[in-house]
């Protein structure tokens, strides 16, 4: 999830706010935003997740010319099920579920800023699950900084991968 350049754009914030059903004008109306305490359009609290758009290696976006694990002619474009990548930031692949997400906001994030996403070394551990066999946890922490290095948001995600399919009871 390393991203060298994550431009935080007003139109992207508008789309993101719409997608979470948030009609607060601070995310959409520049005139309104200028008169508020923060003085500009700002990003909603979970917006930095959308830095995935600027990650060239992001596995959960189809790439032209490469097989995609979603359906086309067949139910999947791959021969085998995708293996989880131990992600936590974006929920990982098919086998990885997003277990936790935590943010620390060091100051408001304003439209027009450019950030970089700097991943810290991931942590992983295992736990014996009650129903799903062994559970593999991975924790990824990403620091969102300005290009000058100022820390704006710290994001910590935990992903969990189960060894076998969890029984549906």
């Amino acid at each position, binding site marked *: 999830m390393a991203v060298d350049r994550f431009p935080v754009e007003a139109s*992207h914030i508008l*789309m*993101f706010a*719409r*997608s*979470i*059903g*948030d009609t*607060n004008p*601070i995310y959409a109306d520049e005139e309104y935003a200028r008169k*508020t*305490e*923060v003085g500009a359009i*700002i990003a*909603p*609290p*979970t917006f930095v*997740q*959308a830095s*995935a*758009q600027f990650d060239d290696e*992001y596995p*959960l*976006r*189809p790439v032209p010319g490469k097989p995609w*694990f*979603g*359906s086309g002619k067949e*139910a*999947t474009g791959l021969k085998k*099920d995708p293996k989880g990548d131990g992600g936590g930031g*974006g*929920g990982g*692949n*098919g086998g990885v*579920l*997003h*277990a*936790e*997400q*935590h*943010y*620390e*906001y060091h*100051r*408001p994030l304003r439209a027009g800023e450019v950030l970089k996403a700097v991943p810290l070394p991931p942590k992983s551990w295992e736990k014996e699950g009650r129903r799903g066999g062994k559970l593999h946890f991975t924790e990824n922490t990403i620091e969102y900084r300005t290009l000058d290095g100022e820390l704006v948001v710290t994001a*910590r995600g935990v992903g969990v991968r189960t060894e076998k*399919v969890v029984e549906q009871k």
Partner: protein
Amino acid sequence: MSLRASELKVGDSREVVIVDDLSRTQIVMYAGASGDYNPLHTDDKFTQEIAGYPSVFAHGMLSMGMTGRVLTDWVGDGRLTKYGVRFTKQVFPGATLTTTATVEAIRNEGGVNYADFTVVTKDQDGDPVVTGTATARLD
């Protein structure tokens, strides 16, 4: 728009229906805006035949995003200093989600007032789908 410490007390609570009859289209909107195109969220054929779930389901981050609105509408824009959740149950299309945010503490740290909240979002069966905590800076 921002909240003064004197306007809040421990135990104050807000309950908001954050989505009624969640549509597949809204999940598609979230996929497009966030960039998370995992077919588990938008592709029923893959999700049923390959992954083995009854249907597509919402990104956890969509539920976290919708839940966050209850906090930001309350404390004001740009006032959250922390927001974290666990995802405890999958959310399928058709879900109706209700968020309850509660003030757990009001404190002064280094001359700055803060409020600590717990937040829980439950589905139409009353089961929590998102549980977490948040902190906001107050005036």
